[in-house]
Structures are given as C-alpha cells and as structure tokens.
C-alpha cells in the first residue's frame, strides 16, 4: 500500500455562529470568530489517497486527475468565497476547520476511481490543522 498526497491552497472567509444560541452565548463560545462580517484564512489542504501501485503505470492514480477533482470539488466551491453565505452546506453547518475537512472528505471520497481516500488534512494557519480519516 502506498500513500499519495496532493497539496492545494485556497483562501476563504468565514465566521462562527450557531443560530440556536443567543448572541451572548455565541460571543462567549466563539470569541472574535463570531464577528458577523467574517474573517479570512489561507487554507492549505492535503489530500492523501491510499492504493496499490499499478504495475503498468507505476502509479496509484493519475495526479492530474486528482488535481482536477480538487479543482472541481473544492477550489471552484470554496476558493475566494465567504463560506457561510456562498457554500450551501455551511448555511446550516458551522464552517469550522473540522467541518470544512469533513465536507471535503464527503465530496471527494465517492468521486475517486482509483485508490481510496485516506486522510484530509486542512491547515487553517501554519500552526493549526485538522485531520479527518472518515471516522
């Protein structure tokens, strides 16, 4: 088994707010991340696919295909967007880094034709990242 990782970068804005809670509770829970006008990050995404090396091509999958998949499923949807307002799933799900990683997994996993999605690693800043293994 070989693990192949492709990295991609996108920039987006978001804010944390749970409409089921009061403004005070939101402010206490999320602090400055609750600012309703949002704030932004440069996200770094690492997508890891696990699979066997094809004896003919010497590859697990064509990285060009993976790049195109990231482009259509992640970049076109999230890059330079206000996640809360412009990405439908985040109208009802808080776009925390955890939830963005889970959403990216859900979009990519069924679309991979070669290999299996192993891990989504999403950096919100160089000092903070989330790993999701589909559990």
């Amino acid at each position, binding site marked *: 088994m070989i693990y192949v990782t492709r990295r991609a970068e996108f920039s987006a804005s978001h804010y944390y707010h749970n409409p089921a809670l009061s403004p005070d509770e939101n402010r206490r829970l999320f602090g400055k991340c609750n600012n309703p006008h949002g704030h932004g990050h440069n996200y770094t995404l690492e997508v890891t696919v696990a699979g066997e090396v094809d004896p003919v091509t010497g590859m697990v999958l064509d990285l060009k295909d993976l790049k195109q998949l990231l482009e259509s499923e992640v970049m076109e949807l999230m890059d330079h967007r206000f996640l809360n307002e412009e990405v439908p799933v985040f109208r009802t799900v808080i776009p925390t880094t955890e939830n963005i990683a889970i959403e990216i997994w859900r979009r990519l996993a069924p679309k991979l034709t070669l290999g299996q999605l192993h891990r989504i690693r999403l950096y919100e800043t160089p000092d903070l990242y989330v790993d999701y293994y589909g*559990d």
Partner: protein
Amino acid sequence: MPVAHLTRRYRFAAAHRLHNSALSADQNAHLYGKCNNPYGHGHNYVLEVTVVGPVDPITGMVFDLVVLDELVRREVMERFDHVHLNLDTESFRSRVPTTENLCVEIYNLLEAALRDTGRARGVQLERVRLEETPSNFFEFQGEPSTAPQPRQEATHGEV
C-alpha cells in the same frame, strides 16, 4: 458524530545538557559527544499537540482552543520555556533531558491536565510531537496500558 484530529503548534526555547551521573566522565563524553558540554546548550523546540474526539454538533469543534492554549501555557510553557531543563525543572533533576524524555514528560503532563479539566467531553490527547531542530523530531502516543493504539516513533539524527 464524526471524529476529527486537531493539531496545534507551539514554540519554546530551553537549554539542556545530556549527562548521566551514573556514568563516568569518559562514558558520558563518549555517549553524548558535544551534548555533554558541562555548560549546556539550547534549542528552539517546536511542540505539536494533537487531540482527538467527536466534532461537537453545537460548536462544530473538537475542542476549545482557548482551553488547549491555557493547558499548554500552564503545563509546558511555564515549566520549560526559557529555562535550563537540568537545573531549573523538577522533571529533570534526576533524569536526562533528552528530547525523547521531554516529549514523554510533556505527554504525561498534558494527558493528566486534559483529564482534570472536566471540559474534555470525550476528547483525548492523541500525540505529542517535539522538534528539537527542524531535522530532528520525536513522537509519543502514550504507553500501551493507557492508549488503545500505542505507537512510539523517533528519528535520531545529529544532536
């Protein structure tokens, strides 16, 4: 509930000397080389703390970073930042402050602190990764008796 693994990076600087008083001066010099220099030397350590747990459906988060930052500040920074590990800490009065031992000590301190917060709600310390230099790092995931999937990894290059 989906389970996510959250990693946060911290930095601290400290001095240490690798020396085992049970061994002779020659044995120490042979074993630890220039790390045995009696005046000690220092590193900029980079600490990565990983916690694992269910994503809270109310907050969308695994764990409150403010709480994690406070635990790391209290348990790690106050003890180990800008000190001489051998001379200024209780942890290493009788133990060699190799980065392996420091990594395990930080794991044990944070694991106990996380359990004691009462705010962890199913969140567990999963891994401590400690860089001594950019090309030299150690990982500890707990002892077999306390962790479901124990694994200890270390890379050991030049000191």
